[in-house]
């Protein structure tokens, strides 16, 4: 195996070196063999991908020989060094920009789909030290093979792999936050546009107030509508989830609802829980600006009221059903017993053993198998490992047939 010139900029248009010392062209997937010289690679580029090769040379040639050290800077603090920085230069080339954009979308998807903290994109040492590995970037790197994650001791090692470095901003939590904000703003715009196109005047809203951790009081607002051509069933759009620190009176909430209605138009009706303040807000809101009121059968509740969430009503009824004197004592005892079992590990183990014995005693093959995997299920349950659980269920299904 001969040593290849590491600094040759053409390498970034080829894939990694394979064991039989061939490398694949990233543009046309042709495999070329390295025989002591880069001549055949150069020839391939000049013949087949002239434009790309010229662009690369124009951008990289003056910089490649220079600065061997790169600076780690926050993205909003450019310095004179940036203009000579080979990494920034690499970023500037069009192809790289596209790939970085893909990676940034991955970041947003990772943070929002899996609900990870922004800091998860940073390495274990924090961004100010070095672009250290983060679990996230390490795991997507094999999926985006054009990039090279690198622990950074100079430009040389970058070019040895012949591929550009991940920009520092991908390892920065503030940048990740900025990305999520941008994505959220655009999605919000899209949602509102969709709503205005398809729902105007036909939508209903639901709203509720929620106190999250750290006394964060937030108000949620969703809209539901059916498109004019009935091409789908009811659609849901998240209108807003806004901070609501004022006192939760009906008037305050109504004012907030008006603000939203000014942006997207009025809803037809609203669905809320049975809280007096929310009901009042809905009555004020729908009463002044809603469609004109008609009362039909006098036995029915007139319009302009919010529709009370039926599940809240049913659930409240069930809860009070357990509180009536006839059964209250019984269910309190049940609850005390359950609480005891939740506290006492010993009692819980006993309960589990008793179940295994019971299952082992019954001749039903399905149950017997359940008892055997029961131990496994318990282990997995305690570590809340869902994939493993689903595996067990699948195997159970297979064996029962």
């Amino acid at each position, binding site marked *: 195996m001969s040593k290849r010139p590491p600094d040759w900029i053409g390498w970034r248009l080829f894939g990694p070196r394979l064991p039989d010392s061939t490398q694949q062209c990233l543009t046309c997937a042709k495999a070329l063999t390295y025989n002591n010289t880069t001549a055949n690679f150069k020839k391939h580029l000049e013949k087949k991908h002239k434009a790309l090769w010229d662009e690369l040379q124009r951008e990289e040639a003056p910089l490649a020989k220079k600065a061997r050290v790169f600076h780690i800077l926050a993205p909003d603090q450019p310095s004179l060094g940036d203009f000579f920085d080979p990494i920034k230069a690499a970023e500037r080339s069009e192809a790289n920009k596209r790939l970085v954009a893909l990676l940034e979308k991955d970041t947003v998807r990772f943070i929002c789909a899996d609900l990870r903290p922004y800091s998860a994109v940073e390495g274990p040492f924090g961004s100010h030290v070095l672009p250290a590995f983060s679990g996230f970037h390490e795991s997507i790197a094999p999926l985006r093979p054009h990039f090279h994650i690198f622990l950074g001791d100079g430009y040389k090692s970058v070019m040895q792999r012949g591929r550009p470095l991940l920009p520092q901003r991908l390892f920065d939590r503030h940048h990740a936050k900025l990305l999520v904000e941008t994505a959220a703003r655009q999605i919000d715009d899209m949602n509102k546009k969709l709503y205005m196109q398809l729902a105007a005047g036909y939508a209903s809203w639901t709203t509720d107030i929620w106190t999250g951790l750290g006394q964060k009081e937030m108000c949620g607002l969703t809209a539901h509508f059916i498109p004019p051509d009935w091409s789908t069933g009811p659609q849901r759009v998240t209108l807003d989830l806004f901070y609501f620190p004022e006192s939760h009176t009906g008037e305050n909430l109504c004012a907030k609802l008006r603000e939203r209605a000014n942006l997207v138009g009025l809803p037809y009706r609203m669905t809320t829980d049975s809280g007096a303040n929310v009901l009042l807000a809905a009555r004020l809101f729908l009463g002044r600006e809603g469609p004109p009121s008609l009362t039909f059968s006098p036995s029915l509740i007139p319009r302009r009221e919010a529709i009370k969430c039926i599940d809240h009503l049913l659930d409240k*009824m069930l809860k009070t059903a357990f509180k009536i004197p006839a059964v209250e004592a019984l269910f309190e005892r049940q609850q005390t017993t359950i609480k005891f079992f939740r506290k006492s590990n010993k009692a819980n183990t006993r309960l589990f053993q008793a179940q295994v014995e019971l299952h082992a005693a019954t001749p039903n093959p399905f149950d017997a198998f359940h008892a055997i995997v029961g131990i496994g299920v318990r282990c997995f349950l305690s570590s809340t490992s869902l994939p493993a659980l689903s595996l067990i269920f699948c195997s159970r299904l297979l064996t029962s047939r």
Partner: protein
Amino acid sequence: VKLLLAGKTRWAAIVDQNERFVRLKPALVGDNGVLQQLINDDDIDEAKKLPFDFSSSDWAVMQQVVDILSPFRAAIRELEGDYYPTLPLVLKHVYTLNDFVGNRLGAVNRQRGAGINERVATLLHHLRAGLGDIIDSLPQEAYFASLLDPRFLDSFIPQPMRETLWADLDAFINEMWSLDNTAGAAVEREESSGDEPALAAPPIAGAATEHAAAVRTARGRAEAPPTAGKKSYKEMIAEKINARSRLQAAVRPYRELVTIDAHLSASDWWRANRNVYPKHANAARRLLAIPATSAPCERLFSTGGRILEKRRASLSPESVRDIVLVHDNLNLLDRVVLDDFLYDD
């Protein structure tokens, strides 16, 4: 299987708790039940003070409560759904539950002498009263939504109310119709303008072509010369469908429809028939979109709660909103352009 403790926030969680407890009865009591073991065992002192002595009548009550309340839980789960009309289901579930409780109560009263537990009867009475209150407070939209859902129509509405409700519904849809046509719902008007005169006039053979031509000119789509001989396949099909649906409408007014199968989708039916009953479709588009529960909102909060976990308690509300928005619309993320205005160099 572990014992389950009812959370405060999940709907009908107490039913789950009770069901799990009853399910574990063989392990808890019985020949060598865990409860007995715990009382006999000297290791766990605390167990001695606990009220473990469930009598057989206690277990019987718990078992019956499971039977009585699981339909309630099923109803709650179906009503909290997304992406299908839920308001028409309210009537179905509430009245079915009411009948169910009534039947159980009747059965209990008949067997009162035969050792049926008083406590269950009290519980049933309570549920009956509760359902009565809920039925009294049902909004008129729930009734109208049921009438406008071809799966139910008036099948769950008590007989004496049906006549007035159908009359009310007619008033309601006319009101909605005039509201839209004066307030200028452009989309709706364009869609239904072709069908309104057709409903008024009885279907005459040959009127279909004239009508189609009129519509075409009215909509400003007269680029294709409207010669009778040369019609595109699409137009011919459309006319056939139009003629047939008009015939249908003339034969069968909305009120005399027969319910369709309960497992079919109401929105599919309306998609096919929206031009047959334009006024009804117009009102149905509003009513069937109303969610019966505030579950969608609660779902937002549950996502928010997962974001605002202990270690991220100081996250700003705006960030929570952003993450929830993207989380709920991951399918739109492909259309987002991230780098265009972030790095202008």
